C-alpha cells in the first residue's frame, strides 16, 4: 500500500519569507487526501552553514528532527524544502554507513536517531505516492495563459545516489504535474543550474549574475513564468529580480510561483488562499483568464493540445514509476 500519512517538516523558511509555499502545500495535500502530522518542537535542520562548518554539527541538527519523527511511529518525514531534505538525507546516509559518526552525533542528542525514518520531498510524495491520476481528478480550473518553465534547482534530484528521485540532469516531475493540470510547459535547459543559493547576502554580485542567467534562459524558452520547488530559488528569482535588472541592465518581469501554488490554482483555490499576494512580481495578469474546467470544450486547438499533453504525461509517469521501482529493487 502506498503511504498517505507523513510527518511534515515545514522548515524555517516556510515559517518566514516562504510562508506562501507552506500555505499552498498544506492546501493541496488536504485535497489529495494526504495526512500530515507536525513533529512536536522541531528545530532548524542546520542547512548550509552547519555542514560547511562541521559535519557532526550538521548531522546532529538534522538527526534531532529525525529522532523526533522516529518516536511518532511515522516512517517518512516529508519536507517541501530541498535544503532541509538534503540535510536529512545526508545525515541518514552517513549514520547508516559510519558507526563512529553515528555515535558522535547521538552523543549530542538527548534521544538517539537510529536511522529508520527517511526523508522524502513533498514534490516526490505528490508525484510518486499520490500520482498524476489523483491530481488530475482534483483539477477544477484551467489556466490558459500560463507558459511555465519548471526550475528544479540544484539538490532536489542530485546527487542521484543520495536524492534517489527523478532525473539528475533533466528532472520531469514538476513538468508532468503541471501538464496533468492542462498547463503549457516549455522546454527549459536550465532546470538544475544553480541560482546562487545561500550567497544572496554575503556575495550578492555572484548571485545576481547566476540568477540573471537563469531568468534569461526562462525568457528565451518562451515561458512567461518560473515554477519552483525551493524557497531559496524563489527568493533569488523573485525578490532579487529588480536587483538583477539594475545590475545587469535587463528588464525581466517574470512571476515565480511554487508548483504547489500552480496546482492550488488548478484545484480552484484563490491567489490569496495560496499566498500569491506575498510575491514580489505579480502573477495577476497571467491568471486573470482562469475559468472552470469543462467550459473549454469549444475552445482553441492549443487547449486540446494541453489536454493531450496531460494524458501523455500520465502515461509516461506510470512508465517512469515502474522504472524507478525496478531500480530501487535492484539497489
Amino acid at each position, binding site marked *: 500500500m502506498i503511504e498517505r500519512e507523513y510527518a511534515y517538516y515545514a522548515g524555517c523558511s516556510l515559517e518566514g*519569507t516562504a*510562508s506562501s509555499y507552506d500555505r499552498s502545500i498544506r492546501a493541496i495535500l488536504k485535497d489529495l487526501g494526504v495526512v500530515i502530522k507536525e513533529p512536536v518542537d522541531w*528545530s532548524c535542520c542546520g542547512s548550509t552553514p552547519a555542514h560547511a562548518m562541521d559535519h557532526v554539527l550538521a548531522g546532529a541538527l538534522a538527526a534531532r528532527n529525525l529522532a523526533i519523527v522516529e518516536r511518532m511511529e511515522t516512517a517518512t518525514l516529508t519536507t517541501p524544502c530541498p535544503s532541509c531534505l538534503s540535510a536529512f538525507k545526508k545525515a541518514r546516509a552517513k549514520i547508516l554507513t559510519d558507526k563512529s559518526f553515528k555515535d558522535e552525533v547521538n552523543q549530542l542528542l538527548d534521544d538517539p536517531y537510529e536511522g529508520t525514518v527517511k526523508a522524502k520531498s513533498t514534490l516526490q510524495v505528490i508525484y510518486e505516492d499520490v500520482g498524476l491520476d489523483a491530481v488530475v481528478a482534483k483539477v477544477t480550473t484551467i489556466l490558459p495563459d500560463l507558459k511555465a518553465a519548471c526550475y528544479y534547482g540544484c539538490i532536489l534530484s542530485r546527487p542521484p545516489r543520495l536524492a534517489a528521485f527523478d532525473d539528475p540532469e533533466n528532472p520531469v516531475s514538476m513538468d508532468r504535474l503541471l501538464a496533468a493540470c492542462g498547463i503549457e510547459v516549455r522546454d527549459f535547459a536550465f532546470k538544475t543550474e544553480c541560482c546562487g543559493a*545561500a*550567497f544572496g547576502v554575503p556575495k550578492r554580485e555572484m548571485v545576481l549574475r547566476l540568477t540573471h542567467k537563469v531568468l534569461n534562459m526562462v525568457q528565451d524558452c518562451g515561458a512567461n513564468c518560473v515554477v519552483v520547488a525551493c524557497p531559496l530559488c524563489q527568493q533569488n528569482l523573485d525578490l532579487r529580480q529588480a536587483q538583477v535588472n539594475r545590475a545587469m541592465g535587463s528588464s525581466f518581469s517574470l512571476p515565480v510561483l511554487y508548483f504547489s501554488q500552480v496546482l492550488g490554482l488548478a484545484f480552484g483555490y484563490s491567489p490569496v488562499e495560496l499566498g500569491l499576494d506575498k510575491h514580489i512580481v505579480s502573477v495577476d495578469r497571467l491568471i486573470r483568464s482562469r475559468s472552470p474546467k469543462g467550459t473549454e470544450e469549444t475552445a482553441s486547438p492549443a487547449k486540446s493540445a494541453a489536454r493531450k499533453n496531460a494524458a501523455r504525461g500520465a502515461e509516461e509517469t506510470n512508465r517512469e514509476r515502474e522504472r524507478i521501482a525496478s531500480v530501487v529493487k535492484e539497489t
Partner: protein
Amino acid sequence: METVRLASDTLNDFAAEVSQATGQDVVRCYQCGNCTAGCPYTEFFDYPVSQIMRMIQTGQREKVLNSKALWLCATCETCSTRCPCEIDVADVMDGLRNIAYREKRFTEKDIRTFYESFLTSLKNHGRIFELEIIARYNLKSGHLLTDADLGPKVMKQLHFTPKRIKGRDKVARIVKKFMEKK
C-alpha cells in the same frame, strides 16, 4: 607559470587526510575536467574545482585550505553528479571547508560572518529568525546597508518575532558542545 617545489611546498599525506575526513577516494581523480566544466562557480573561483582535486593529490595543503574556492562553492552537486570516478566532489569541498574552519582559515570573511550569524540565530531560538540574521550580518560585517533596498518589498514576507521552540536549550547545547570541541 607558477613553480611548486615538491620538497618544501607539499605534504604527501594530505590526500590521505582528505580521504579520511570525507570518505571519498580522491586519488581516483584523473583530471577529466567534467566537474569544472559544469561548475557554475568556476568564473568566481581562484582555482577551478578540478585543480583543487589535483592540488589535494599533490599535497598542496596550504594553497588548498587558503583558497577562496572552498568558501564560494555552494554545494550545488553538479560535480558530484557528473564525476565519472564517482567521487562526491562537493563532499570533498565540504570536508575541506570543515578543516579550514577548524584551523580558522577564513579567506572569505563575509561568508563566514553570514554562516555564524545564521548559527547564532539557530542557537538563540532553535529555529531561524531571518530578520535577526540579516541585522546581525550587517552589523558584524560592517556592510550596514546590505539588501536595504529590499526592505519595503520584503516587508510583506518577513516575520517580526522569532519562533522560539521549547527545546531551544537542547539545540543550543548541540551548537555549544560542538564549539567547545574545537
